[in-house]
């Protein structure tokens, strides 16, 4: 018998008992739809976390200078500048896993346009900063290394600042802005980055060349960086290596003896990100495991019904053998029946799972992400369930003795 004929015989047998076939597939339907929906929701949550961290910058490390200790009061991180401009240059040039590094000098202050004013964060940095944060201009062009070298009075502003000072939809590029009463020319407005996870508005910022910052906004120590360093590693994989290399480099440069505390600290943001992702991944795995268990239960249901079916159709099996069916034909027929039940259940389950995830997403405002590979695996897995749990009943059917089978009441 060819495979197509076997399939048709199997389908005929299944459609003879529609209700029973439907109920049998239900276990697999629920299992597969649960897998699909859970993974879609889990991946949606993961994508959301990833998007949040991508907004902060990719593969980012922050180096913060050490603590000051005055009269027993520990000043906290950053209270004493221990990082020098030479340290920054060393990080930039001596560590191959570092893609870019920039100093960040921050203060708060009042900025003014012709008729508006706004209190915001003022950041002095170099052009690498935009690269590290993967932050492109929406309008105009960013300031350059040349601007940093000459201390040009140019400013790049965030979307929020642009809206507050120049109004929505206006083009502030080329206009004047006063930061702490010093006139600057707006050269670019940055793309909107939105809020951080903790509600901080990334777009509420004005960014000026670091040298201009030191000269015009906040006077500075000559050799020390009065702020932190932002570093991006060459890739997500090299982030931790970059972290340890920076630590070793700085300890060496600061001549810290073995066993002494660091006089700086390094924060690895990708670690925070991966911890968050790990959380959602664990959740997804857990849900998928529960769903897989229900698939297993569905498979046992198929096996149960197939065993009942073999017993019920003992005479039919005997007759088929008498008229020339080989044991392999019988085995294949029942295997294909089990497989058809499981695959049908799997396909219905995919439909239901996709719909269910969509419905949950729209009613709870969650994000969902459908993964074709998960859908394909779920269908294949349900097929596997059919084969595994159909094997024993099919084998049992093929081993029947035709004489006994034909006399079976």
């Amino acid at each position, binding site marked *: *018998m060819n495979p197509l*004929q076997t399939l048709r015989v199997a389908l*005929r047998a299944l459609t003879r008992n529609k209700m029973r076939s439907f109920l049998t597939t239900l276990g697999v339907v629920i299992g597969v739809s649960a897998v699909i929906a859970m993974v879609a929701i889990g991946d949606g949550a993961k994508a959301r976390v990833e998007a949040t961290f991508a907004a902060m910058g990719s593969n980012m490390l922050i180096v913060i200078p050490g603590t000051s200790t005055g009269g027993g009061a520990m000043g906290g991180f950053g209270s004493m500048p221990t990082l020098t401009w030479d340290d920054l240059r060393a990080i930039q040039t001596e560590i191959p896993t570092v893609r870019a590094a920039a100093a960040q000098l921050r203060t708060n202050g009042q900025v003014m346009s012709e008729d508006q004013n706004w209190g915001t964060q003022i950041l002095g940095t170099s052009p690498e900063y935009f690269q590290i944060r993967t932050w492109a201009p929406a309008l105009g062009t960013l300031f350059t290394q040349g601007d940093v070298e000459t201390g040009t009075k140019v400013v790049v502003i965030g979307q929020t600042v642009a809206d507050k000072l120049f109004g929505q939809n206006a083009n502030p590029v080329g206009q004047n802005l006063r930061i702490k009463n010093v006139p600057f020319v707006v050269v670019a407005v940055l793309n909107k980055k939105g809020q951080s996870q903790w509600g901080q508005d990334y777009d509420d910022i004005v960014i000026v060349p670091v040298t201009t910052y030191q000269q015009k906004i906040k006077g500075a120590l000559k050799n020390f960086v009065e702020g932190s360093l932002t570093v991006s590693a060459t890739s997500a994989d090299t982030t931790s290596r970059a972290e340890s290399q920076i630590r070793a480099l700085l300890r060496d440069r600061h001549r810290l003896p073995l066993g002494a505390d660091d006089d700086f600290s390094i924060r690895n943001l990708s670690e925070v990100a991966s911890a968050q992702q790990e959380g959602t991944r664990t959740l997804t795995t857990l849900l998928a495991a529960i769903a897989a268990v229900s698939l297993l239960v569905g498979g046992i249901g198929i096996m149960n019904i197939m065993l009942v079916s073999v017993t019920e159709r003992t005479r039919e099996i005997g*007759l088929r053998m*008498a*008229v*020339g069916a*080989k044991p392999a034909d019988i085995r294949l027929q029942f295997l294909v029946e089990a497989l058809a039940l499981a695959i049908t259940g799997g396909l219905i389950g995919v439909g239901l799972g996709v719909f269910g995830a969509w419905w949950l997403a729209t009613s709870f405002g969650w994000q969902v992400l459908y993964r074709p590979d998960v859908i394909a695996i779920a269908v294949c897995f349900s097929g596997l369930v059919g084969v595994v749990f159909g094997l024993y009943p099919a084998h049992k059917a093929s081993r029947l003795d035709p*004489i006994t089978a034909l006399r079976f009441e």
Partner: protein
Amino acid sequence: MSPPPLIQFKDVAKVYRMGDVEVHALRGVSLTVEQGEFTAIMGASGSGKSTLMNIVGLLDRPTGGVYLLEGEAVSTLSTERLAEVRNRTIGFVFQSFNLLSRTSALENVELPLLYAGAGSAERRRRAAASLDRVGLGSRSDHHPNQMSGGQQQRVAIARALVTEPRVILADEPTGNLDSRTSVEVMQLFQELGRSGITVVLVTHEPDISQYASRVIQMRDGRVLSDERQEPKVAVVPPWTEGDEEDQP
């Protein structure tokens, strides 16, 4: 040289083992059936006639002796080969018809062809021809539960005939039929015999064995008697009141 006999038993024995007890179903049976013979095998239950039938039909293997079918020693063939030989050479008719329910007469008749590997058009054509041969050509789309017992048995005979076998094995084919329908079935078997098909029939009814050209009596696993006879010609009596089988 003449062709070998269709069925040849040489001292065939069958011993079943039920726990510690050995049951001798056949204690050395030797017989020869030629092509076109209409043989009835008779005997009480336990006489070994069913075992004999199962061995002839390749559903069972002898534990001793040799069985030659068309000159070939079939008792040593693999299960797969036996299924093929069964499919090609032998047609079965059972007491309880054994039709697939919720399946049309045509599809029931097609079943052996499915395992012979025939294409669907060929299956349909040959099954329809086979149903015509038993006089049910007009009922090919009926399901077994829409048919009388006689019609169901004729569908079963059409199914046995569809592969154009050498032998039809009928195990108590009239056991579930009334006398009138039984005669109809016997008439059909006599027709098949005339067209060269060998019919081997197991029955315990002397009335039925009259229609055969040869009667083999079995007792305790042995052949008691083996006689050729002039068969009674099966004539279906005209339809009488109260006999609702096969009413046109």
